[in-house]
């Protein structure tokens, strides 16, 4: 049973095709990475998955129904989406953000406010204004908000950006734990190929098309990386096998 399904999805901004014939099934409990060069369509795919954009052709299904056909609260209860750019021009406090996540969904919450904050390493910061914490902590506060929503499917656009090595690993460990204990499905875009090897599955895209789909250890080769990022063939990426 898949939780999120892309079926022959195409999307273009005006005349410029951005996603081309993209199909994939995300199974329950999977931690999936989305890899691709800048402008390859990663964010657009995540927006399509979240229902922010409507495919020009094809269908995106969440829990067996087109994602756009779910009512707002139903959708928020099932799916959490974190965009890449997160800004809070007003001095919200960390606890207020988590409350917003909880208020968005129906009341049967997966995790309590405390559990959510502990999970992202922000316990004790409920009253701290977002303006007084670092960029990485702010990102974790937003992730706490998405987790508080309690959705079983999470779409995270570069959630590791701006985090230091320790929190990158801790967040990935947290997400993996959630996939295992609560059967969450998580699709996240990322740029770090070494971190990507810790995921269950990778989707590699180039110019809006699916280039490879499979186990990181199997599909991540020098050749694929060169093709994905249009690298000079003489350039070898450290830590990636032949």
């Amino acid at each position, binding site marked *: 049973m898949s939780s999120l399904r892309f079926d022959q999805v195409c999307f273009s901004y005006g005349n410029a095709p951005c996603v081309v014939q993209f199909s994939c099934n995300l199974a329950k409990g999977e931690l999936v990475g989305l890899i691709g060069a800048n402008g390859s369509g990663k964010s657009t795919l995540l*927006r399509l998955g*979240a*229902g*922010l954009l409507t495919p020009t052709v094809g269908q995106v299904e969440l829990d067996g129904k087109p994602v756009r056909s779910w*009512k*707002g*609260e*139903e*959708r*928020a*209860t099932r*799916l*959490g*989406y*974190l*965009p890449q*750019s*997160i*800004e*809070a*021009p*007003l*001095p*919200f*406090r960390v606890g*207020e953000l988590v*409350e*917003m*996540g909880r*208020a*968005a*969904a129906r009341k049967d919450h997966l995790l309590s406010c405390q559990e959510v904050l502990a999970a992202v390493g922000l316990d004790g910061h409920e*009253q701290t*204004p977002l*303006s007084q914490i670092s960029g990485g902590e702010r990102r974790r506060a*937003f992730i706490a908000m*998405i987790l508080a*929503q309690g959705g079983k499917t999470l779409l995270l656009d570069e959630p590791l950006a701006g985090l230091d090595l320790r929190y990158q690993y801790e967040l990935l460990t947290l997400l993996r734990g959630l996939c295992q204990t609560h059967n969450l499905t998580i699709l996240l875009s990322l740029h770090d190929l070494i971190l990507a090897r810790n995921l269950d599955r990778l989707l590699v895209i180039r110019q809006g098309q699916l280039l490879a789909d499979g186990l990181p250890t199997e599909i991540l080769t020098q050749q694929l990386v060169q093709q994905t990022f249009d690298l000079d063939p003489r350039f070898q990426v450290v830590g990636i096998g032949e």
Partner: protein
Amino acid sequence: MKRHPLFIMLGCLVLVLLLSLSLGQQTVNPFNLDPLQLKIVLDLRLPRIVVALLMGGSLGVAGAILQGVFRNPLADPYVLGTSSGAALAAAFGLLATQGTGIWLVPGLALAGALVTSAVVVSLGRDAWGVRAERLLLAGVGMGFFLSAILMLVMSLAQADGVKRALLWMAGDLAGADWSVVPVAGLLMLIGFVLALARRRGLNALALGDEVAFGLGLEPGRERALLVLAASLLTAAAVALGGIVGFVGLMVPHGVRALVGADARRVLPLSAIGGGMLLCLADTVGRSVLPPVEIPAGVVTALIGAPWFLIMLRRATNGGMR
């Protein structure tokens, strides 16, 4: 703990009210009034205090809404030009009918506020949505333009038109009476209740449209309802006493520093804080240089404009986008 700021603000409000009843051309003891003083207090000061409370409260709430909806800590009805739009439309009503009909001025003010909001938003956006700086510039530009037309209309209309226009644009509460209080109070109430009902939308829009959508909301719909609420409140304020700047700008910031940014707490406390600030400004304006009365709007601008510049500096240093 959560209730403390509310009690502190209500305590301050009572002090301001007593001060405002006591001070003016003649200082009185509100607990011991002779018949003449009682008449002064009931006929002159009380309506003025009520008008200041309603008007300041409306402006405070409108500012809190606009800052959240447009994700811009420097937004308020004055900066965005909606006050000027409301005032211009209301002025036409005043001139055309010599002020008959209690609905006319507030109604036209509402129409003016709505039209101006729509124009400023459309000027302030590009293909990617509303831009913070662009919106501010559009608002300031529209404000100048509409104020100029207001001056023109008033000066063409009659001999003392310019003075009236100036007083109105300076936010003078000296002529305050009970006549507009019921209708303006109703507009304020509807705007306030609407905003409070959409508090989740207000919180979410402050984090951006994509986050708001992820939280299960329709950003466009929420924004439209909240701008409507802000327009109702702006219209109420303008109908009560003309154009007063900076109350809507300063009050929500002070409130957020006390209780955080959650609209559930910011909206009610901005109403109390705004009323209190304008009442205080009016009291100061009529008591410091008797017999001269300084319009309340001048007092708020004297405090607010330097504060705006400090905020602007902080916002650009802190990376407002």
